[in-house]
């Protein structure tokens, strides 16, 4: 791996990192003071250049920011979510913000995701109040609220294939698949016997979803037959906080963990662990793979650093 480009942000602990879908080299990071336990939050918008990572814009919020997602119809717009139960809409073309605050959740919002299918512009949020809400960012109120989870919700992710379809992962140990058009849950999968902190959709198979959990395992689920996982990946030594499928390789995914590591996997290989990256010294919570470069990865950690790098396993064809 070539040296990671690193930015240190004193007093801010990284919770999420997302590459812009429009501008190569632009990265958003949601961060919180005091490890997200108390205090304020900051949205950092960074640019890469020949001298490293630079802050392009910084916005503060009065509670910890836990996730961030870029708009799919405006290169300057992002949405974050926070510990006070609200979502915030920001515009990097303006020096101050936010443009809009959406306040309906009654507890911490840990997940926010903008739909990529482009047929509609919808944002989905998951909260510790055990509800999922779907929003049109141009409207101040949520369009719909989804109930059914029996514990805090940690992750809500749109399907990149099927409009109006999203997955949610929860402390109730289930992965659920929902359809906006029916307002009800379509599939309930008791995916782990521990809390599930993250999930993601495969970019090349509309039926494949991965979960990452407190039991240190990643499990792949074929939604047509959920009696048992189609793969299980072991190696992390603490809870898996985020998992992302590669945009470029059908069977490649990455995960980050409270064990401080980021691991890269190919679930179709006999030995699926491709690489373990150990460049953080605290819980590693944010992770994203670039849409523009097949090898570029961004992550962020509670050690107050944000890094962009090219892991060896993605640069050398495996």
């Amino acid at each position, binding site marked *: 791996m070539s040296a990671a480009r690193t930015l240190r942000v004193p007093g801010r602990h990284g919770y999420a990192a997302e590459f812009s879908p429009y501008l190569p080299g632009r990265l958003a990071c949601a961060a919180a003071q005091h490890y997200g336990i108390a205090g304020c939050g900051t949205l950092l918008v960074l640019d890469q250049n020949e001298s490293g990572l630079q802050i392009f814009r910084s916005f503060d919020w009065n509670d910890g920011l836990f996730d961030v997602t870029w708009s799919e119809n405006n290169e300057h717009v992002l949405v974050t979510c926070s510990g006070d139960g609200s979502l915030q809409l920001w515009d990097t073309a303006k020096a101050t913000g936010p443009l809009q605050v959406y306040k309906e959740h009654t507890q911490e919002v840990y997940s926010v995701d903008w739909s990529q299918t482009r047929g509609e512009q919808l944002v989905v949020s998951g909260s510790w109040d055990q509800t999922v809400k779907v929003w049109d960012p141009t409207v101040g109120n949520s369009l719909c609220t989804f109930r059914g989870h029996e514990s805090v919700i940690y992750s809500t992710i749109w399907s990149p294939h099927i409009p109006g379809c999203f997955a949610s992962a929860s402390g109730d140990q289930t992965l659920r698949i929902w359809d906006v058009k029916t307002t009800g849950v379509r599939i309930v999968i008791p995916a782990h*016997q521990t809390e599930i902190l993250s999930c993601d959709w495969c970019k090349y198979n509309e039926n494949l979803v991965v979960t990452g959990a*407190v*039991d*240190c395992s990643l499990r792949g689920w074929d939604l047509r037959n959920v009696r*048992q996982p189609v*793969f299980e990946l*072991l190696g992390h030594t603490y809870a898996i906080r985020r998992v992302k499928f590669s945009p470029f390789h059908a069977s490649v995914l990455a995960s980050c963990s409270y064990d401080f590591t980021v691991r890269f996997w190919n679930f179709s290989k006999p030995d699926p*662990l491709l690489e373990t990256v150990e460049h953080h010294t605290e819980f590693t919570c944010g992770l994203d793979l670039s849409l523009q470069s097949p090898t570029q990865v961004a992550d962020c950690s509670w050690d107050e650093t944000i890094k962009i790098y090219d892991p060896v396993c993605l640069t050398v064809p495996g």
Partner: protein
Amino acid sequence: MNLTRAGARLQVLLGHLGRPSAPTIVAQPVSGLASPASFQPEQFQYTLDNNVLTLEQRKFYEENGFLVIKNLVSDDDIQRFRAEFERICREEVKPPGIVIMRDVALAKQDYMPSDRMVSKIQDFQEDEELFRYCLLPEILKYVECFTGPNIMALHGMLINKPPDVGKKTSRHPLHQDLHYFPFRPSNLIVCAWTAMEHIDRNNGCLVVLPGTHKGTLKPHDYPKWEGGVNKMYHGIQDYDPNSPRVHLVMEKGDTVFFHPLLIHGSGRNKTQGFRKAISCHFGSSDCQCIDVSGTSQENIAREVVEMAEKKYGFQGVMDFKDTWIFRSRLVKGERINI
């Protein structure tokens, strides 16, 4: 931001750390047709993931079937339970449904209402003061590690072990508590047993056979002890007398949590004083009731039904599982099955 939210967030994050490291092997991918055996084997069977027990405590319970938590119940609470016990013995308080038992040896003496006559109080769910024991948050937070979040109080007891009059009737033969209960699965049931004073081998402490919770429910009946044995004190018919055993010396307020299949009993009270303890069996409300006909539990079921019919006046209508559901109370979460 307020401090209660900070506490809640810290608690959630600590919950994420409550699991020991997974083995650092890398598993093979499995096809959709693989058998469940391809899953990583469960490391824990008798405890649930929680953020209360340390890893060492959890391993100890998994291996031994019991866990002592020192100084869990306060002196004030114990004094209140003692005072209520005395009021019940003097018949100043008469909670409905309560079962007052007398030692088989003392019962033959002249009757006079006094705490010296009573060896045990059971089914105190309608006594607000004694039932407070089953609602103590410090008890329930440990119970949840074994039952999960939906908790039923199944059976409360206050034990007043009398000084033995020389006939050794104050012994409780080695037994498994599951013999008395039609609830399953047994791994979602736990007994909390709190010493109300210093308890050791002189006044008859609990004796346990560590690891026997991993076995099965054995047939029980009255032991053939000279001098008699107290009513419903069934014991295991066949067990290895040389099994290693542990005597649980406990101070006032210490509480032992133990599995319903753990073989245990208590010895004679060789002192002149009474020895008091208060206990409750808790189970998940997810548990199911089974029919014990044709099983080794049929003998105790018959006795329990006879006693319940006598007490409540339901003639021939009640069965064993009804007698238990009738007395169970939800103490946390939601009532589901039982």
